[in-house]
């Protein structure tokens, strides 16, 4: 076919404004999608309240059996009983906001070949999944986080932060948690390209993640060496740091450091997910037609 005229296609690019509009649209669609399944979240309000109630009575019993410290108040791991209950309650309220399953979504899409339908579209799959997670988070905020806050805070006497401004920093911090959590999920989800079934990996990640994020037990209960290890993992940037900010345990520059650690993990995991996704696509077969 030498000498054949070749038809050219323009390398197409979306404008920045259109890209922003597109991603906002994904946020909106994810919100609508979860709204269709809102019934599921009403039961979530009940189960989260039961979790927190469990910890409430557990810690009350533990602290009651404890001799009062120097200030006349019993302390464990540097927290009073009121702080401890606040720690648990705020941790779970935060989790109700940032939690998502995009790792599992990605696994299903890879396993069933549905990922192909994303790859034939002119957009960045990782970004789309991130903004869908954001849409889910907005939905969870309205339908889940706000209701459980209204229930849990008065019920268990959750403290307000020592300074009101910390409430704003906590919200920012939990927003960073959402990014870290989603990107971590995405990265783990990329394993699905290489393994047939990553259900176990995802479950292990979720359980150990909650534990290592300090959602179940505060880090200050752990031995020193364990705390050192945990500091180098991304999980503390998800659950532990925002609650510490809320409790006023990150005064002055430590507040900035905590937020920077979170932002660092967000960027680092985003980049890692990017590399993992691209490499996986190059090496691995997408199942089915």
């Amino acid at each position, binding site marked *: *076919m030498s000498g054949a005229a070749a038809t050219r296609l323009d390398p197409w690019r979306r*404008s920045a404004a259109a890209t922003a509009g597109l991603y906002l649209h994904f946020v909106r*669609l994810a919100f609508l999608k979860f709204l269709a399944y809102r019934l599921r979240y009403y039961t979530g309000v009940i189960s989260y309240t039961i979790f927190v109630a469990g910890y409430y009575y557990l810690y009350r019993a533990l602290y009651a059996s404890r001799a009062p410290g120097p200030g006349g108040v019993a302390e464990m791991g540097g927290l009073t009983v009121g702080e401890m209950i606040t720690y648990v309650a705020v941790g779970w309220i935060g989790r109700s906001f940032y939690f998502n399953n995009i790792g599992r979504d990605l696994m299903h899409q890879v396993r069933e070949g549905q990922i192909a339908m994303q*790859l034939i579209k002119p957009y960045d799959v990782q970004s789309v999944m991130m903004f869908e997670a954001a849409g889910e988070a907005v939905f969870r905020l309205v339908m889940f986080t706000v209701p459980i806050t209204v229930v849990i805070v008065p019920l268990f006497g959750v403290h307000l932060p020592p300074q009101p401004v910390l409430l704003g920093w906590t919200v920012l911090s939990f927003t960073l948690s959402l990014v870290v959590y989603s990107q971590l999920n995405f990265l783990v989800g990329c394993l699905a390209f290489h393994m047939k079934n990553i259900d176990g990996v995802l479950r292990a990640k979720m359980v150990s993640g909650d534990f290592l994020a300090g959602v179940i037990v505060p880090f200050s209960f752990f031995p020193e060496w364990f705390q050192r290890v945990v500091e180098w993992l991304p999980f503390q940037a998800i659950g532990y740091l925002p609650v510490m900010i809320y409790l006023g345990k990150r005064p002055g520059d430590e507040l900035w450091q905590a937020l920077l650690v979170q932002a660092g993990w967000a960027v680092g995991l985003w980049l890692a997910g990017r590399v993992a996704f691209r490499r996986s*696509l190059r090496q691995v077969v997408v199942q089915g037609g």
Partner: protein
Amino acid sequence: MSDVLIRVRDLTRDYRLIKRREGVVGGLVDLVRPRWSTLRAVADVSFDIAPGEMVGYIGANGAGKSTTIKMLTGILTPTGGEVTVGGLVPWKQRRQYTRHIGAVFGQRTQLWWDLAVVESFRLLKKIYEVPDDVYAAQMGVFNELLGIDEFLHQPVRKLSLGQRMRCDLAAALLHKPRILFLDEPTIGLDVVAKENVRRFLREIRDLQGVTVILTTHDLGDIEQLCRRVMIIDKGRVHFDGELEELRRRTGHRVRMTVDFREPTSGARLATVTAGLPVVWQEGEGRRHVAEFRRLDVAGADVIKRVVNDCPVRDLALAEPDIEEIVREIYRDSAAAAAPAPGRSA
């Protein structure tokens, strides 16, 4: 020389598979020291496709059809060879390239499962930056040709397969792509729905001049839509040419079914057509079937002999369907070393 839109040269894709050992111990050994084997799914495939062509890409399961399509759509990176579509390399410039293509993979949908159909279209409008007037015009065309306005506000999960396929076709064409990839577009559809899909594809090609590459098991799709056919087996292209040429290759084989007025023996028929390249298949009683090639003998000559010698009640000539032709092409290329065995007596 004609214009080229899709240029494929020596395209090759290998899959690496673990050769499993047997038993529990074998399974454990596999974990530590896997034995890899390589499967060549697509081997040195080359072709050119001009703008506006409608090409049927056919082959059995596992022949390499889907792998080729995946490389052409940028989903899969080849092991070797090159593909350029309008100067773009699909898997390297995925985002710049996919704006120009649409795809329908019959077994899956690109619509958002939980949302009303119209929400998917609105999203696609944003994804491809379709201007308002183009969007309105395209939706008008789809309503007219596919009648999608009936279920535009239903969630995708509640659509029938036929309705979903109509929506998927519209979704793939909303942004007026230059190339449309169809992987088994009529799979699972009933006769009426199939016919609707085919009619739509013909109309949209005439209307918007889209280049279509179609893989299918259903040779009716090819017969009704494509002038050009490529046959792939074991990763290699065995035939690339016009459908008419494919028929010619097999010498215009014809199957003649004859109903006689009285029971007739095969031996008698063999003597009747002695000297003509006609093969009588094992028949019974009054009905017999003969095969011959129009290239070797005129149908009229065969019929004349039979009708003159035996009382015939009825007689029908039928051309083989493409499935048979494809099977023959496979057989011929399998026995490529030896000359193809003659079919004449």
